[in-house]
């Protein structure tokens, strides 16, 4: 078996050299496609991260009915704290709220002359564990009898979410199209070497090579194209991402960018393996077609 593997690799290199120009074209194509693929992966991950970070900083605010006593309010606070998904509940009594409000605006408005009684309700500021839970938690809090109203900036988050969704959908469409185009080019590249080696294939079959055996050198040729394209796009993407991160965190320090090395290496790995897979598939398709029309 070892001598066969050696044979496959030597044969693959032969093909590689024979159609050097077309091979270069295939490598460049696969590199471009993989870089775009990686770019989209990183963009989606970063946008998701931004949405997640902002969303988790957002609080729900629940307003009670005005005439709730402080004791009852304390009981409600406990109840809210026990709801699933709730991380923290902060209570602000209506007196505190009124004092703060007057402190903020009183001097300008001469409030005491217009409003004699505190018009504000008690409020609860609720933080959820996971921003996805916001709508659910909001619903269960507003279901409580003593709660008049629940507010959270769900619209903003929903908009950001749908934007991420749109980018993701566009990315998937683009990546699928690019993969198909890449596959087509790899298939045609390797088909050239298949044609150039028709006699070799004929002789191999004549002397009793199995189809699997005939296919391997071409599959390996595809894998080599994929590996080279994968490594090239990895280098391009890593260098540009690292420098982009530096510039973004200098210019927009509040923007959370993904710097988790494990996640980044995972993205690079997925990208490179996609290249290897595309190359392998391309080699397989082109040689299989050549082997099909025989008795």
């Amino acid at each position, binding site marked *: *078996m*070892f*001598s*066969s593997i050696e*044979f496959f690799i030597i044969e693959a290199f*032969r093909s590689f050299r024979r159609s050097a120009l077309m091979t270069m074209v295939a490598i460049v194509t696969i590199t471009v496609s993989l870089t775009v693929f990686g770019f989209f992966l990183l963009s989606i991950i970063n946008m998701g991260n931004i949405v997640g970070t902002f969303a988790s900083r957002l609080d729900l605010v629940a307003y009670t009915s005005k005439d709730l006593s402080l004791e009852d309010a304390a009981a409600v606070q406990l109840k809210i704290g026990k709801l699933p998904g709730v991380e923290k509940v902060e209570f602000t009594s209506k007196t505190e709220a009124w004092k703060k409000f007057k402190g903020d605006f009183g001097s300008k408005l001469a409030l005491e002359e217009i409003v004699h009684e505190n018009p504000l309700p008690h409020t609860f500021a609720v933080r959820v564990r996971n921003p996805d839970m916001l709508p659910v938690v909001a619903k269960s809090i507003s279901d409580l009898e003593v709660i008049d109203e629940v507010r959270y900036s769900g619209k903003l988050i929903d908009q950001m979410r749908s934007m991420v969704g749109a980018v993701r959908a566009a990315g998937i469409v683009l990546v699928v199209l690019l993969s198909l185009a890449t596959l087509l080019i790899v298939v045609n590249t390797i088909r050239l070497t298949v044609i150039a080696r028709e*006699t*070799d294939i*004929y*002789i*191999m*079959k*004549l*002397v*009793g*090579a*199995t*189809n699997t*055996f*005939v296919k391997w050198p071409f599959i390996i040729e595809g894998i080599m194209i994929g590996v080279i394209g994968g490594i090239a796009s990895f280098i391009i993407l890593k260098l540009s991402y690292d420098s982009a991160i530096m510039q973004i965190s200098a210019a927009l320090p509040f923007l959370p960018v993904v710097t988790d090395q494990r996640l980044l290496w995972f993205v690079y790995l997925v990208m490179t393996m996609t290249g290897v897979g595309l190359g392998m598939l391309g080699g397989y398709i082109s040689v299989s077609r050549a082997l099909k029309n025989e*008795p």
Partner: protein
Amino acid sequence: MIELTNVSKTFSSGIDALHNISLTIGKEEFVFLVGSSGAGKTTLLKMLYREDLPTSGKVIVDRVNVAELNPDQVPYLRRNIGVVFQDFKLLPKRTVYENVAFALRVTGAPRSTIRRKAMQALELVGMLRRVSSFPNELSGGEKQRVCIARAIVNNPPILLADEPTGNLDPTTSWDILQLLDKINKRNTTVVVATHNKSIVDEMKKRVIELDGGRLIRDQQLGMYNV
């Protein structure tokens, strides 16, 4: 060893290349397949190593019905049949040694076996001195010797030769036939398709003659013409 029963081959063009052929070739026989160009010799040989399938009839090679063979069994049939061509079909970018070793490589044989068997085959055909030459550095007769070495390197029980002397001068042709005879004497069934009259007449072997796809003569110790 080889048994054809009512074998016919009609190409999609409508040409009747073989018509109801029945014949039996025994183990270790030496047979000439003669007939003018277009008689169906090549087509008949192709039926044996399943380069092509018969339209009807039964082809049995080494106890196996070739026509009904599962496609993934074909490689194993081919390892039992060596084939030699008029145009040699050597790979131009490989040395003599590589061309012969190629036939063993594709069977996944270990490296030491490949080397030993390839050298043995090259010695048998008298090409040991030229192992590192490329095909374009060889004469026609030498190329044919390499082609024969490649065909027998697996020790197949059957050797088929399609016009092996078609591109060679009379003396070289005679040498090649001597070589095929030698291989036949080493327990190999040999079938040679040819229209080289003088050689057939000289060798005095069994002669099977085709004409327009029909078998018109099957004669022991035959001559090219009746």
